[in-house]
C-alpha cells in the first residue's frame, strides 16, 4: 500500500497540455539541429517524442520523451540505445525525495532511479516551457560534448 500511495502522490497534476506540447516542439526545432520533435498523436497527444541523431557517450541513438501538463508539471525522459535512462521532472513527491526541497528533481543515470535516497535536486529552476526546454537541450549538449553524464545535472559549464 505504501508503494501505491507513493506512486499516486508522484503523478503529474492535470491533463497533458496540447498547446504547451506544440510550443515545446517549436522551440526544439529552432534550437537543436540534432533533435527532431514529433507528437505521438497530432490530435490527442500525450507526449513529444524527440529523436536525437546521436546518443551520449557510447550510445548511437537516443530519444527524449516530454510530457507537460496544464499545471506546468513536466517530465523530460532520456533513453538511449545503450539502455541508459535519466529524467528531469517537476511534480509533487510528498516529501519522499529527501534531497529535494521543491518540486523540481532529477532521476540520475544509468536507470533514472526513483529510489527516494538517489533522486537529486534538479539544477533546472525556471518555470516557463521556453526556459525549461532550452535548459534541457543545453545540458544535453554539454554532456554530449563532454562525453559524460556528469554535466546533466550540474548547473554550470566551467571552462
Amino acid at each position, binding site marked *: 500500500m505504501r508503494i*501505491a*500511495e507513493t506512486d499516486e502522490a508522484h*503523478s503529474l497534476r492535470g491533463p497533458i497540455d*496540447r498547446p504547451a506540447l506544440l510550443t515545446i516542439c517549436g522551440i526544439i526545432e529552432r534550437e537543436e539541429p540534432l533533435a527532431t520533435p514529433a507528437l505521438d498523436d497530432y490530435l*490527442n497527444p500525450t507526449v513529444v517524442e524527440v529523436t536525437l541523431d546521436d546518443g551520449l557517450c557510447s550510445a548511437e541513438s537516443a530519444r527524449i520523451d516530454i510530457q507537460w501538463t496544464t499545471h506546468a508539471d513536466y517530465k523530460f525522459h532520456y533513453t538511449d540505445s545503450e539502455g541508459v535512462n535519466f529524467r528531469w521532472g517537476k511534480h509533487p513527491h510528498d516529501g519522499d525525495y529527501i534531497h529535494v526541497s521543491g518540486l523540481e528533481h532529477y532521476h540520475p543515470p544509468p536507470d533514472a532511479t526513483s529510489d527516494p535516497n538517489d533522486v537529486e535536486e534538479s539544477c533546472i529552476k525556471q518555470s516557463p516551457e521556453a526556459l525549461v526546454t532550452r535548459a534541457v537541450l543545453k545540458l544535453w*549538449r554539454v554532456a554530449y560534448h563532454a562525453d559524460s553524464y556528469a554535466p546533466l545535472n550540474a548547473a*554550470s*559549464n566551467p571552462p
Partner: protein
Amino acid sequence: MSNRIPPDEFEDINEAVGEEWESETTPYERIRHVIAHTYTPASADTVAEDARTSPKTARRHLNTLAEEGFVITTTGNHGGTVYRRSPESLVVEQAADILEHVSTDELVTRVAEMRDQLNDYRDEYGVDSPEELTIEQANQTLTEPTSEQSEIDAETIRDWQTTRRNLAFANAALSIANAERFVDGDLHSTDGSVPA
C-alpha cells in the same frame, strides 16, 4: 550550425538560458509566452518574474493582451488584478492549428474515436467523469487499504482528462470547418434557393 561547435561556458544554467531568451525576444513576446499557458490566475508580478521583465512592463502588456482577448482579467484574493489565458482564445487558436494540419474527413473520424474512448471510460469505471473517478478512488483507498489499483488509476485519470480536453479542441475545429462551409457557400450558391 555545426554539430561540433562546443557549447558556451556558463556559471548557472538558469541564468544562461534566461539571458539567451532575453536577447532573442522582446518583453512583450516573453509575457505573451508566459501567459499563453497560464491557466490559473497569476499576478502581474509573478508573470513579470517568469518573463524576466518589470512588473510595470508586464502589467502594461497584459492589459493590451486583455484588450485583444488573449487574456482574461479578474480580481484576486487581495484585491489586485490577476491574469490568465482566455479559454476562448485558446480554443480558437488550437482549432485553427488543427484545421491547418488535419483534413475534415480525418477530423470527423478521429472525433468519433475520441468520443468512443470517453464512453469506454464511463462504461468501464461506472462514473461520468475523471473527477468522479478520483473521488471514488479516494473512497476506495479508505475502505480497502490493500487495493493495488492506485497507480493504474492515476494514469487513467490523466488519459481521460487529456482525451476530453483534446476532443474539445477537435470539436471546435470541426464546428468551424462546418460553419465555414455554409458561410462561404452563401457567396456562390447555385442550388436555386437564392434568386438569381
